[in-house]
């Protein structure tokens, strides 16, 4: 499976670099991560709870960072295994300074999955992984904002990462959106609610009018 995308961080490249190379921050960015520990200069091990459609479970994983060119680019090799199957792959991440003080992240990777994850989760895996990356990057961006505020004001970092439930809800919303465009869903809900309200108002007015008879 090919993964490719980009994301704009609201902060300078050096700050983004520090952030993405900090295992603690990374762990909070992908909720479900139960631990992420640095075991070598460029090597991390940890475990993460993942749910994709009907497939859920804990993955034990190892991440190796290589080809580091601070603060421009690095390569990630990920290898994870658990009851739901396995996944491994490599990804290349590049950071570009933008004129407006923001940072563009581009990533492309190749992922192989196996086990239940592949055989039962196949239909959902593409959307789910894209959404998880997107949600994860958004959490990272929020963490970045919190860091920058703390630095500017000389206070402690006040950032509460999303809980696993919040994260899962966001992913689920994304995936539902894939099946039915979200605007359409909202439209249907709004229309239904509006219709119900109108019906109630009409009923109340009508009942009131009858009482006055």
């Amino acid at each position: 499976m090919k993964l490719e995308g980009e994301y704009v961080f609201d902060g300078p490249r050096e700050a983004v670099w520090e952030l993405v190379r900090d295992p603690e921050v990374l762990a909070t960015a992908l909720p479900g991560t139960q631990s992420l520990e640095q075991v070598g200069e460029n090597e991390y091990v940890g475990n993460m709870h993942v749910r994709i459609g009907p497939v859920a479970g804990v993955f034990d994983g190892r991440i190796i960072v290589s080809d580091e060119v601070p603060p421009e680019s690095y390569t990630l090799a990920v290898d994870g295994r658990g009851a739901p199957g396995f996944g491994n792959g490599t990804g290349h991440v590049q950071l570009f300074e933008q004129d407006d003080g923001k940072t563009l992240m581009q990533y492309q990777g190749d992922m192989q999955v196996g086990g239940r994850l592949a055989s039962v989760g196949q239909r959902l895996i593409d959307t789910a992984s894209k959404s998880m990356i997107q949600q994860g990057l958004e959490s990272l961006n929020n963490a970045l904002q919190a860091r920058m505020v703390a630095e500017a004001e000389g206070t402690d970092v006040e950032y509460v990462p999303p809980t696993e439930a919040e994260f899962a809800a966001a992913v689920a919303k994304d995936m539902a959106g894939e099946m039915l465009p979200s605007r359409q869903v909202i439209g249907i809900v709004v229309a239904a609610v509006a219709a119900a309200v109108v019906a109630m108002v009409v009923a109340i007015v009508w009942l009131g009018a009858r009482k006055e008879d």
Partner: protein
Amino acid sequence: MTKKYLGQRMTRTEDPRLLTGQALFVDDVQVPGMLHAAFLRSDYAHARLKSIDVSAAKGRTGVVAVFTAEDMGDAWRPSPPNVSPPPGMPGVTFHSRTPVPLVKDKVRHAGEALALVIAESRYIAEDAVEDIWAELEPLDAVVDLETALDPDAPHVHDGLESNLAAHLTQEKGDYEAARDQADVVIKRRLAIDRCAAGAMENRGIVAHWDPKSEHLTLWDTTQAPIPIRNGLAALFGLAAPQVRVIAPFVGGGFGPKIMLYYPEEVVLTWATMQLGRPIKWIEDRRENFFATTQERGQVHHAEIAVTKEGRVLGIRHDFVHDTGAYNPYGLTIPLNTQSHSMGAYDIPNYYSDLKVVFTNKTIVTPVRGAGRPQGIFLAERLLDLAAKELGMDRLEIRKKNLIPPDAFPYEHKIIDQAFAPLIYDSGNYAATLEKAAAMIGYEEFLKEEQPRLRAEGKHVGLGIVPFVETTGVGPYEGARVTVETDGRVSVATGVGTQGQGHFTSFAQIVADQLGVSPRDVRVVTGDTSEFHWGTGTFASRGAVVAGNAINAAAASVRKKVLALASKVLDTPEEELELVDGLVRVAGLPDQSVGLGELAVMANPLRGAVEPGTEPGLESTDYFGPQYGAVANGAHALILEVDPETMMIEIKRYVTVEDCGTVLNPLIVDGQIHGGVALGIANSYYEQLIYDENGQLLNASLADYLIPTATEIPRVEIGHEVTPSPLNPLGSKGVGEGGTIPVPSAFAQAIEDALSDYGLEVLEMPLSPNRLFELVHQRDA
């Protein structure tokens, strides 16, 4: 014998039990003290097993034992092959590699079992499976059958020089010379992908070793209980009578349940003997997708040589057959493909080069059709291409080449799946094809209906193909028929039953021989303690081989009945008749004796009997055909394609079948309905999709599309009857015929419907997506 019941459209005697939930299936078996098993299976398709740590699983409360290959000691060994390897023939290469009970060194397909957990409940066993840590080093996988023999391909089996499992060529006449004389030679690549059998009931086993009686009982969803019993006895050093294998009601076999010996059968037997407690294992649907065998999976480079008059001079094909990770079933499937690659036609020159390859995918053994659909697809596609090239009518070119009725027995001059000469015994192939053409309204459709519908903008097409089906192969089956003292009749035979209606059609045979109602005939199948000689249910042979054995045993009992009744009634045998459970003097209905009374007299408690007398009214007989009976038929359909969505709608489906003597038309119709449903599935729905790492990507019934009633049309059935001269009943098999020609007919109909796109259908199965791609590839 008068045919009162044979040939009757009798409702099935087993159905009330099945429909009211009273029938015993393996999962219904409950034995006191029974434990439950779950397997740890490899997620990788190809990997080296470095180590395996089961300590956490063993420590879980409720876990009784955890076993790996190492624990089995000397009991760990690859299974014996299912079928005899090819005899030493010149030019035949065959490397036998059979499945192992649990992986010891290397995983060769995803889903191969690494460890067995036995626990107080299935829930605990499943949880404990997740406690096991297996250190697996992934290896590159061999997935694509066409590149499996590339020099740089990884090897599935380390001890072999390549992934070549077998190589065999067959030749009839001189194809090269025929090609030189031909006016037209057409070459194409044809591909048929993998499918599952998709039986409603997955596999299941209850294995029970009783240490005190030193007896093993195995309830098993097998199609071959007797070979399983014999094999397990040999593997575990037991005498055959110490092992009883029971195949109770089985929710569909379709081929994969003939496989012996599944690793689970061996390892559960070993485990119950270790623990002295009964163990149940019921396969779940996901396991079924990985651990139960699959089929199809061939690529052909095919060639046909024809004259401008449309006479076929020869066919050549060089093909690769995917056997998966192991080849326990020998060459049965690709030999069947060769046996059907000339279809129903008289083709003077033939050359076939077969290469079988190992891949890191689930093992391939027969699935309903068993190589035959691939052969028919080849012959029929080539004829369609030739007809187009020559501008000939597709029925015309077929009629020109069919084996004529006076050519039987027709010797094909190649070998069949048993390495014996392939002979077609009987039939009237033109009659079945013409009947199908008449039923579908061939002329009228092409001349009137299709032009009219096309003018309305509808893409409607017709497909029509004849086919043959080799059935009823040997070696033999047997049966014991007994008249009980209450006048009812018991029948026991060795074949297993997976929904074929054996209880009814076998009873009909006995009823006619003994003059009783089929409802008074109790049939037992698939229990080795009831009958222990035989081979199993496969190759559409139940009605032919077991049916004729039952007929022979019933005829022997009839003789005993007549001999005894003749004495009792003091009347010559030829003046007696067997009617309504009585032996009567013809024309004097008052003078009669009941079958039950005769059974009592045949087994006296005191007194003397004549020397040489056998007790009871019972006989055991066997039937082994000289060679297999060959059924034939023709299918025709009309379908409409929506060129925007590529969804199809089958408007009509017609089959004409010649399965010789029809024992029960209702059951035959049912076989055809089911067969056609699988054929349609093989054409447009069911396809197992593997990625480049050997991961099966649609291992659930949400993603693997088994068609439902809404996709399967009403099937109109016609019959021709050419009794087989090879057996007294004149029967031929019909179990696979419904499936075999469907992809060929379907491909022709789709091409016809989309004729304005100039499409050629050279692969199966298709799907809306795939058809869309094919049409738009041509556009580009």
